[in-house]
């Protein structure tokens, strides 16, 4: 039975729960918008990285270089789309 719950994944799950609770503090504790956004950015990106490495086994295949390159390129495109749109249409530059 024990072998079905490898420590790496159990710790990964526990960490993701802790990160979720920290993110929820933004709602339950009164804080400024900026501080809240910084907390959310840190918890969200940490959790995404955790999923990628612990659960999606991104590093273990012989093609891990291509997998990481492809994923980081996807993330770059995502950030360019989101922040580019905000820059042009909301922040007013």
């Amino acid at each position, binding site marked *: 039975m024990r072998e079905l719950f490898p420590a790496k994944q159990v710790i990964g799950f526990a960490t993701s*729960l802790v990160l979720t609770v920290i*993110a929820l503090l933004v709602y339950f504790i009164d804080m400024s918008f900026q501080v809240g956004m910084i907390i959310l950015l840190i918890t969200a990106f940490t959790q995404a990285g955790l999923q990628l490495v612990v659960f999606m086994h991104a590093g273990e295949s012989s093609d891990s270089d291509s997998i990481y390159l492809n994923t980081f390129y996807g993330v770059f495109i995502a950030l360019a789309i989101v922040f580019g749109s905000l820059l042009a249409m909301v922040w007013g530059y």
Partner: protein
Amino acid sequence: MNIDHSKPLEYSTETNDMNIVGFWVFIGAEIALFATLFGAYFILEGRTGGGPSAGHLFVISTLMIQTFVLLTSSFTIGLAVNAMRLGRKGATIGLFLITLILGLGFVGVEIYEFYEYVHEGLNLQTSAFSAALFTLLGTHGAHVSFGLFWGVAIIIQLVKRGFTPATANKTFIFSLYWHFLDVVWIFIFSFVYLKGMM
């Protein structure tokens, strides 16, 4: 077909390796897809046009249930892949089933939530905010719903054929898909719900 026994079954053939890399390319495209929907949402979230706003609509209890259920399902599909590598067919199928039941629970709560939104006077045509919100949440929910059917199809193959390079590969790729949906949810949870309620 060349089977390399030194590797886990899901990586054991050339085709399997390429399937996995190919699926990562698909995930890269999905990242871009969700980025456009997030971008649209961030631009339009303030344009409520007299309809309900984010702060007015979002409820912490359903959000916490959805997040906990989806995080747990991501954990159980990870355990299913681990069980598969140990060659434990019963445990793999059981964990896979638990994952899908949790996914069904997630979709159920989301449908309830949409029902409540409509009740509050928010539908797809209410405002720019509502259109962007429903499109983003709906695209994620549709992905989870599709995953339920896909998962059932893979479970049937596991029951019928057991672990072969093909079924192991499909199970592993499904787990990638499911973890990815969990990652997308983390961003929805943080930058749609919590940001909206802050």
